[in-house]
């Protein structure tokens, strides 16, 4: 039996998202628990990515996007104008579908976040942050001798781990992962999954994935989205063994989607 943590980290209530006239999320009520991995599954275009982009307010970038409803992190409402998105995103890191390291050195990729937030008062402290971040992302041993090479020279899997290191360099509380393994081969995927197991000890992780087996392997809780609605959310074990909803059952067994 997997240990289930009951402390709620993120709670969304009646979350609606509109892109222009099109509604992308429809009254999503979801609780994400602290220090565990929550997987969001569902067919393409169901709103999983839109959902996690609400949590760090990345949807602000899109002009026509409108978000209504409540998003609480540790009980604090963040879906309001007065919230400073810069410090919000310091607390909530994100890893994207396609590895997107900055076209700078490996070192600069990791040090960029701490640098702009002033987390290191000197070079020694910065070196330390870069080293621990890369170690946490299980990349240190592969890159420690070539920190000055461009991040883009790494392999796809390494680049994605570099992006994870970049996300954890500012010491966030939550890490959002938007299909982090969809562009990677199985070996690189296995490494990232292993890493997530390790990271969930210190961070709350939300992962969007298209792979059922990945959701089973890495997550403790799974939410199933369909057409902008959250159909069902429960422990991963329950969702994959005995879901309440017929649609969930059909999706995880591959009958649609």
């Amino acid at each position, binding site marked *: 039996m997997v240990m289930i943590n009951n402390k709620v980290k993120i709670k969304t209530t009646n979350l609606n998202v509109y892109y222009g006239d099109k509604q992308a999320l429809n009254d999503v009520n979801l609780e994400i628990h602290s220090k565990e991995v929550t997987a969001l599954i569902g067919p393409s275009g169901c709103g999983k990515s839109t959902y996690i982009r609400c949590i760090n307010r990345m949807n602000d970038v899109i002009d026509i996007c409108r978000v209504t409803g409540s998003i609480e992190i540790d009980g604090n409402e963040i879906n309001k104008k007065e919230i400073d998105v*810069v410090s919000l995103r310091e607390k909530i890191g994100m890893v994207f579908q396609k590895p997107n390291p900055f076209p700078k050195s490996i070192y600069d990729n990791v040090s960029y976040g701490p640098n702009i937030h002033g987390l290191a008062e000197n070079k020694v402290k910065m070196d330390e942050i870069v080293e621990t971040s890369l170690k946490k992302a299980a990349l240190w041993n592969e890159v420690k001798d070539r920190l000055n090479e461009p991040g883009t020279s790494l392999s796809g899997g390494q680049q994605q781990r570099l992006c994870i290191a970049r996300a954890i360099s500012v010491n966030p509380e939550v890490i959002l992962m938007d299909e982090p393994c969809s562009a990677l081969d199985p070996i690189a995927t296995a490494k990232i999954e292993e890493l997530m197991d390790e990271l969930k000890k210190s961070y709350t992780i939300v992962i969007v994935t298209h792979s059922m087996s990945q959701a089973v392997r890495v997550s403790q809780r799974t939410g199933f989205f369909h057409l902008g609605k959250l159909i069902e959310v429960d422990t991963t074990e329950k969702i994959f063994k005995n879901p309440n909803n017929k649609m969930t059952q059909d999706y995880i067994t591959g009958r649609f989607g």
Partner: protein
Amino acid sequence: MNKDQLLKKRYRAEKRFKFYGLVSITLAILFVIFLVNVIFSKGRAAFQRTTIAVEVNFNTEELELSSNASIEEIQDADFYDLSINSLLKLYKTEGAKQEKELLRVFSPDHDIEIKNFLIKNLDNLNKNVIVNLTTSDDIDQLHKGNYPRHLPEERRRISDFQLLIYDQLVKENKVNKVFNTFFFTNGDSRNPEVAGIGGSLFGSFFTIIITLILSFPIAIFASIYLEEFAPKNRITDFIEININNLAAVPSIVFGLLGLGILLGTFDLPRSTPLVAGITLSLMTLPRIIIPCRASLKAVPPSIREGALAVGASKVQSVMHHVVPLSIPGTLSGTIIGLAQALGETAPLILIGMVAFVVDIPATPIDPSASLPVQVYLWSEQAERGFVEKTSATIMVLLSFLIVMNFIAVYLRQKFEKKWS
């Protein structure tokens, strides 16, 4: 039609298409070769100047100078008599007509040439020195082999007597061809043999610098704002359409604008690089903004998102990540815009840069010519000397443009390597 025939037809179409492409490239190359050949064959001669060796005695008494005269004193002295006397010693003449013809072998400013020679070589005071003096345009062309000397005398501007002098001087090895430094250092002149592009070089230089200073920062900030920060609404759409339209407005319209507003309303000095630079900035701005925006747009959005996701502010994500990545496109767009401005003629004619200016401008508010306008001015002249100088100026202008375009390509490659 069966499958085999269809396949053959497709292959034929492909071959035809390749053939058309080859033909057009060959034609283009032939045109370029033809153009370059015409310009080179005409302009080459302008880089050489014909001189005749003349013995000059810099006698201080004759020049009414003190025995160790200073440069200022020499500057004020009259060298005309000395010059005439030295020239007349070259060949035996009878009567005023022949004297005049002998003097006409030389460029009219021979006394100033002698003076300048002495100023450069002060230790020649009180000595007998050989000075190489510039010949008149006709003799210059004669020596370069471009003069129809077989024509009867009444149809030539060179008289039989002058031909005699010339042949004699050639026999004495006194006629030389030297590299024409005048062409680069002198201003414009009515005498083609001493006319140069010095003034227009400086004029063009000042103009381009002013254009760069005015248009580069404005274009960069405008494109960054429009591309990264401006809300997408009707006003920005309207601005975008206008920028694209402005880039297509004929340059002479900007000349009219400069004439009406800069010269008319603000009363800025006419024919100056300042006005030319402002006018050309107006013309160049949209031409720089468009490639700058394109290169900003080409930066993948994932880079912006990556920066925003670690908590960078909008300005930080743009300045730290997007702008550095767009530098190669921005710089090459700017340089190509400036190269276009450098070659622009029509607006400059309207703001009065077409004036005949002999002096080399020292500041951007002195009247001046510019390279393309100089080409235009000289192309209207009938003298053979101006014809070759027109082509030579085109060569100089083209080499500047080629160098600028090479810099653009170099910068693009250099910065792109750095980022990948």
